């Protein structure tokens, strides 16, 4: 284990304190903060494929949606008949007690992390042999198909949608719900960060990079690329599932295509955020997600009806001016701050050669 540098220590403890204090400092913004945590997790884990491994996956939304449905189903199914809960128009109303609610969501989140990871393993085994555009299109299809299929399964509400258990009424503090979801998402964010940070310091990342840079060569070097690709995807699926589970509970209503398998929004946003911040970097997706979220929340309401035009403009600006993302741009401008040593002589000689 490498020694954590003092400067980093200050940074991390600062961020953690900020994270813990945030729901008290900005009490009214708890839901947005929860969204931010979830967005960062999604961007950060997408970056493992898209940034590090060079596999542009549009299918991570599959795990997010799966996690959402799983958490809610487990939370209900542990205590009540699921079919009756979701049956539209059912006259019965079930109420979770406080203990049931938290037990349910706890177990639900666990399931929501493990099953998507297993699914990612299984699907990955089948499709990670595809490369480039073929992989991208295939995963895009996965997300869309999942939405349509979920919309036809009666036990999870089909087209009616699935109302997740309401927060226990016995807890009278109206702020409790917001705090609960914020802290859960913050814990997931911290876990995801620690994990990704660990990967960044490991051989695993180098292998992912090798796959990105030249998969055939990596294979020729004796690396079992398939194994690493699958494991990488499973890690993403694990955290996407958790993120989805939290969002399901927070939103309170799951719709197959608009909330769970929301490839059109969440699925695109996670890619966009990673690219905005700079894919293939540790901090890029975090900064990208934060900026994107503030842009969206801040600007959206002032340009009512034109938000998506603004988003389109943003995408164009990113692609034209920051093709490598903000981190990439910074890296190009100040390479020495990124620990890159530049041999001035060498650079000069290259220039002179021209």
């Amino acid at each position: 284990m490498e020694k954590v540098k003092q400067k980093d220590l200050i940074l991390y403890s600062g961020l953690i304190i900020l994270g813990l204090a945030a729901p008290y400092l900005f009490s009214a913004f708890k839901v947005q903060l929860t969204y931010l945590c979830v967005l960062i997790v999604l961007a950060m884990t997408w970056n493992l494929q898209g940034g590090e491994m060079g596999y542009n996956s549009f299918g991570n939304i599959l795990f997010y949606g799966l996690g959402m449905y799983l958490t809610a189903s487990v939370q209900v199914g542990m205590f009540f008949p699921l079919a009756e809960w979701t049956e539209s128009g059912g006259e019965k109303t079930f109420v979770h007690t406080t203990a049931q609610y938290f037990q349910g969501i706890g177990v639900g989140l666990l399931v929501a992390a493990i099953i998507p990871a297993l699914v990612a393993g299984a699907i990955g085994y089948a499709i990670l042999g595809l490369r480039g555009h073929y992989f991208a299109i295939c995963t895009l299809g996965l997300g869309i198909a999942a939405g349509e299929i979920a919309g036809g399964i009666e036990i999870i509400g089909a087209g009616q949608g699935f109302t997740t258990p309401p927060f226990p009424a016995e807890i009278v503090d109206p702020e409790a719900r917001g705090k609960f979801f914020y802290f859960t998402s913050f814990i997931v964010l911290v876990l995801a960060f620690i994990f990704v940070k660990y990967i960044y310091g490991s051989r695993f990342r180098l292998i992912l990079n090798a796959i990105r840079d030249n998969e055939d060569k990596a294979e020729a070097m004796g690396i079992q690329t398939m194994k690493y690709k699958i494991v990488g995807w499973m890690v993403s699926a694990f955290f996407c599932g958790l993120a989805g589970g939290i969002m399901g509970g927070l939103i309170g209503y799951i719709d197959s295509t608009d909330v769970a398998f929301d490839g059109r929004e969440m699925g695109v946003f996670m890619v966009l955020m990673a690219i905005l911040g700079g894919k293939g970097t540790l901090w890029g997706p975090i900064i990208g997600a934060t900026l994107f979220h503030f842009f969206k929340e801040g600007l959206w309401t002032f340009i009512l009806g034109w938000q998506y035009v603004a988003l389109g403009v943003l995408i164009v600006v990113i692609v034209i001016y920051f093709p490598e993302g903000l981190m990439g741009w910074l890296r190009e401008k100040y390479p020495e701050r990124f620990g890159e040593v530049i041999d001035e002589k060498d650079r000069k000689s290259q220039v002179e050669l021209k």
Partner: protein
Amino acid sequence: MNKIAKLFITFISALTLTLTSITSSFAKVEGDMIVLGSAISLTGKYSSNGVHTQNGYNMAVDRINSMGGVKVGGKSYKFEIIYYDDESNPKRAAQLAERLIKQDGVHYMLGPYSSGLTKAIAPVTEKYKIPMVEANGASRSLFTKGYKYLFAVLSPANQYLEVAIDLAVEKNGGKGVKIAQAFEQDAFSQDVRLGILDAAKRTGSKIIIDDKLPKELNDMAATLAKVKATKPDVLVVSGHTKGALTAIRQISEMKVDVPMLAMTHCDAAKLSKQHGKKSEYALCASQWHKNLSYKDKFFGGGKKYDKDFKKEFGYAPPYQSAESSAALLVFKDAFERANSFDRDKVRDALKATDMQTFYGNIKFGPGGQNVAKPMILFQVRCKGDTCENKVVAPTKWASDKFFHPIPKWSERG
């Protein structure tokens, strides 16, 4: 790394400062304004109905404000609405509801458009004990959840087309009929479907085609091909505005002959205008029609509402606008009876609502649904090239006879 870290920290602290300086500048009642909040679909798949809803709200706000406003505690207040665009997305709607309540300090909410979005917002308003009068969430499951702060001025979705099946059975000499149905995969349409299932059971009818259609409905040719092959007595289609338009377009293109065609959202889709004669004989479920004889002092009757609405927005009001206007009347009435801005008092007053508006009688059942108003059916009928919606059921308001069966395409001019 350290430079980046510094940058990051500066960025975060700058944000912190800006955020803390933004405190909720609105309040539930500010000066002589009663501030209501609403997330509305201005973009996305429900945008046209979202605009109908918004127009309905705005029209009522202007009317009530210009006619003396809301009198509470001897003082006169005016309505004002904060709108956000929910992009027809439940996730966004739930988030915006939270934002309206927590950041904008809204204490009274107006509903969004569609059952799905209402389902997403209701848990939020319930949590903060914010009374919400909604005019466009008809799904029956909204009213079985035990929500205490949700009030709907419209009839539940399962009642939309039940009457149509009864009519078909009646025309069939009391015997069960063969039903073909196709419904969009969304909360509202699926509830309409449940209503049909109930009606089929009750009348001994058989459902021979039961298709689910994708959202953003643009094609239902597969269903129609089956209809052509199996010749049902009734074809039922529900899929909001796009569903209605798609159905008529493809039925006329494919020349599908079916004795009876029952739909929802014909008036929101302006079917009779957009498709003219092609849409003739279509039977449509509606919450409201201008010819009904309800009255109130703000809008007069349905005909006057129709005229005023046309003058202001340039098109005939679909029922989505009418019911949205009615929601404001309900709020005004409740504020005045509560004679207070206390949320729980307003909520109790809403609960006790029993009034007539131009849109219909309004009285809330235990689940918050309106139990005082029946659904109506109208049929598109054409004279020459101008087509109109004529009420055919229930008989109390019927202005025209129900035309049955629909002539074959080969016989239609």
